[in-house]
C-alpha cells in the first residue's frame, strides 16, 4: 500500500536523521568548544558600531556552527563590554586569557580599544586579529598583528588618499587646505595621513587644529576655518562631532571647494537619515555604495540576515559599513585555523602572511605589517538627497564614487556650496 510505504520511508528518514544528529551532538560533545574572547563597545560613544559588529560576528558563529564548527569544535564567544573606554581594555583581555582561558582573542571595534590591547598580545606572543584600527601597528611593529580594514599597507596614507586624489582632479587645482579633527586616537592618525598628502601635493595648510570630542556647538570652529578661506577642508571625526560639524557647515554656509574626508558616522543609517539633505555636497569615505552592488554580490545574503537582527537590536539598519568586515575578520580566522589545523599563534601568523583569503568583502591578503596588502577605501560625494528617509540609501542615486579608479562613477562637483543643489 502506498500509504504504508510513505510511512516506512518517513520512519527510516527520521531514524537516519536522529542518528546523524546524535553523532553530530556526540562529536560536539567530545570536543571542547573553541572559545574566542574579545571586548566590544556595547555602551559609550562607539556602541552603535560595536553592537553592529557583534551581531555580524554572531551571525558568523551561527553559520560556522551550523556547518559543524571549526576543526569539529563548536565555536563559543566570551565577550565583555569595553564601554568604549581604552582604560578597561588591558584588564579585560587579561581576564579573558587568564581567568576565562579562551583559546583565541580578537579585538573589539576601533583604534582606541585596539591600541591598549597590543602590549599584552605582544607580551604573550599571541596572534591578534583586529577590526578597524587605523595604523595601530605603526607604533608596535608586531609581526602577529592582522587588521581588517581596507586602508592598505600604509593605513593612514591609504585611508586619506582618495580625498586628495579626488581634490586634485578639480580645475584649477586647490592650493590651500584646513585640517581639523577631534582630540582622539582615530582623528589624530587620519590627520597624520592627510599631512603626508598635503606635503606630497605641496598644499599650504591655513588651519590645523583639533577640538575636544564633547564639543556642543561647532559653528565657532567652522567660522574660524572660513576666516582662513581654504580651498579644501579635511575633517576627521567621530559620529557626534561629524553631525555637529556638518550642521555647522550648513548653518554658517562654509565657502570652500571640497569638504569632508574622514568623518566616521555618515556611513550609518542613523546619521544618514538624521542629516539627510545637509550631507549634499559633502565628500567622505565609504566602504560600500549601492551603486556598486554588482561588484559585491556576496554581501546580499549576509545583509539580509544582518538587517533582520539589527532591526530587533536597534542598531544600524543598513549594515553597509562595519558588519561585513566583522564577519570577514572571522572568516579569515576560520580559514587560517582550518588550514593550519590548530591554534598555534606562530603557525597561524605564518599562514596568514603567506596566503589570501576569500571573504564576504572580497579577497583579503595581508602586507608585512598585518594591514591589507591592497587599499580599497572609496571616496564618495553625496548629492540629490531628499528628505530624511532611509529607503533612498538602499538604492543607487545619492552617492557618486570619486575614488578609487575601478569603482569610479563620476567626478567631483565643486565648489561645495554649489554642489549642494
Amino acid at each position, binding site marked *: 500500500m502506498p500509504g504504508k510505504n510513505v510511512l516506512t520511508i518517513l520512519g527510516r528518514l527520521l531514524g537516519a536523521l536522529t542518528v546523524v544528529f546524535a553523532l553530530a551532538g556526540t562529536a560536539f560533545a567530545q570536543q571542547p568548544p573553541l572559545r574566542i574572547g574579545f571586548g566590544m563597545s556595547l555602551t559609550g560613544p562607539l556602541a552603535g558600531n560595536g553592537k553592529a559588529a557583534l551581531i555580524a560576528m554572531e551571525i558568523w558563529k551561527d553559520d560556522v556552527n551550523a556547518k559543524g564548527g571549526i576543526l569539529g569544535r563548536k565555536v563559543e564567544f566570551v565577550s565583555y563590554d569595553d564601554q568604549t573606554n581604552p582604560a578597561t581594555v588591558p584588564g579585560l583581555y587579561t581576564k579573558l586569557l587568564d581567568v576565562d582561558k579562551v583559546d583565541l582573542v580578537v579585538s573589539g571595534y576601533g583604534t582606541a580599544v585596539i591600541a591598549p590591547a597590543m602590549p599584552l598580545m605582544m607580551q604573550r606572543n599571541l596572534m591578534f586579529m583586529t577590526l578597524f584600527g587605523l595604523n595601530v601597528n605603526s607604533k608596535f611593529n608586531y609581526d602577529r598583528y592582522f587588521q581588517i580594514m581596507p586602508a592598505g599597507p600604509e593605513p593612514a596614507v591609504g585611508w586619506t588618499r582618495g580625498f586628495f586624489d579626488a581634490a586634485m582632479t578639480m580645475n584649477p587645482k586647490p592650493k590651500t587646505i584646513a585640517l581639523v579633527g577631534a582630540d582622539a586616537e582615530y582623528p589624530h592618525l587620519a590627520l597624520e595621513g592627510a599631512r603626508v598628502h598635503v606635503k606630497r601635493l605641496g598644499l599650504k595648510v591655513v588651519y590645523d587644529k583639533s577640538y575636544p570630542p564633547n564639543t556642543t556647538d561647532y*559653528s565657532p570652529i567652522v567660522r574660524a576655518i572660513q576666516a582662513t578661506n581654504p580651498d579644501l577642508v579635511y575633517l576627521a571625526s567621530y559620529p557626534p562631532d561629524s553631525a555637529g560639524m556638518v550642521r555647522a557647515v550648513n548653518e554658517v554656509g562654509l565657502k570652500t571647494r571640497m569638504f569632508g574626508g574622514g568623518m566616521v558616522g555618515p556611513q550609518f543609517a542613523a546619521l544618514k537619515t538624521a542629516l539627510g539633505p545637509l550631507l549634499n555636497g559633502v565628500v567622505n569615505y565609504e566602504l560600500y555604495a549601492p551603486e556598486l552592488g554588482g561588484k559585491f554580490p556576496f554581501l546580499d545574503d549576509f545583509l539580509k540576515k544582518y538587517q533582520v537582527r539589527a532591526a530587533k537590536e536597534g542598531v544600524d539598519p543598513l549594515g553597509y559599513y562595519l558588519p561585513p568586515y566583522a564577519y570577514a575578520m572571522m572568516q579569515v580566522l576560520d580559514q587560517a585555523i582550518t588550514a593550519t589545523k590548530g591554534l598555534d599563534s606562530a603557525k597561524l601568523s605564518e599562514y596568514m602572511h603567506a596566503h589570501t583569503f576569500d571573504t564576504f568583502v572580497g579577497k583579503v591578503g595581508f602586507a608585512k605589517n598585518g594591514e591589507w596588502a591592497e587599499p580599497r577605501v572609496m571616496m564618495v560625494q553625496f548629492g540629490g538627497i531628499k528628505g*530624511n528617509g532611509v529607503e533612498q540609501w538602499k538604492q543607487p542615486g545619492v552617492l557618486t564614487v570619486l575614488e578609487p579608479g575601478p569603482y569610479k562613477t563620476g567626478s567631483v562637483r565643486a565648489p561645495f556650496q554649489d554642489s549642494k543643489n
Partner: protein
Amino acid sequence: MEVSAALVVNAIIAGLLLGGFYAAVSVGISISFGMLDVVNIAHPAFIILGSYVAYIVNDRFGFDPIVVSLVLSPLFFALGMALYRIYYLCFEKRGQESLRGLAFFFGILFITEVTLVLVFGVDYRTVSTAYGGVTWRAGDIDFPMRLVVPFLVSVTMVVGVQLFLTHTFFGRAVLAVAQDQLALRLMGVNPVRVKELAFALSIATAGVAGSFLIVIQPVQPAIGREYIGLVFAVCVLGGMGSIWGTLIGALVLGIAESFTSTFFGPSWAPAVSFGLLLATLAFRPSGLFGR
C-alpha cells in the same frame, strides 16, 4: 586668519546661544545642589531621559520636542518627587546623605543609562523640527534656529524659575530651606516637603533641557556623562544657589568657549573655561553671585 568684526560678533552670539543651553542644563543643579545640598550627580541622566521622551513623541507623532518636554514636565516633576522621597527615607533622614547619597545618585545615573541602552539600543537618536535646518542671517551674522529656539525657551525657563522662587510663598520657602531648615520648621513649614517639591522642580528643568539637547545634537544613552563636569562648574561659577548666577555663569562659559574656539583653537576651550572658574573662585570663593 582674518579677524573681522563679523567674526567677533558671531563668536559672541554663538557663545550666548551656547550659554543659554548651558543655563538650562545647570539650573536644576543650582536648585538641588546649590539650595538643597543634594549632590544629584544623576542630573545629566534625567537630561538624557528628557531627550529620549522628546525623541519618542517626535518620532511617533511628529510633535515639536520642546513643546513635548514642556507638556510632559509634570511627569518629570512627579519622578523628581518620588526620587527625593526615596533619597530622604533611605539616606537623608538617617544622616547618611553625604557618601551613600552620592553612591545612590551614581547608581541612578548608571541604571538610567543601561535602561535606555536596553530599551532603545545604542544608536544615536535625533529629532526633526520645523526650524532645525533654518538659519536666519543679518548680513554676515548667523542665527541658527537649532540654537536660537532652545536659547529663548531656556532663558524664559530660567527667568521663570527665578521669579517663581522670589515671588511666591513656596519659592521663598525653598530659599529659606537653603538657609535655615530649623527656622522654617519653627514657622510651621515642613522642610522635607519643601525640599521634595524643589527637587522635583530641578528634575522637571532637566527634562526640558533634554529636549534642547536632542534638538542641538544627536543623543545616545551615555552622552549625559559629558555634562556632569559642566553642570557643576556652571553652578559653582555662578554662585551656589543663585539662579541669576547660573544664567550669567553659563553665558560667561559659553562666550569663553566660543571665543577660544574661534580665535585660539577649540582644544583650548575647556582649559580656558575651567581656568576662568578657578580664577573666579580664587578672587570670589562664593562664585559670581554667591552669598
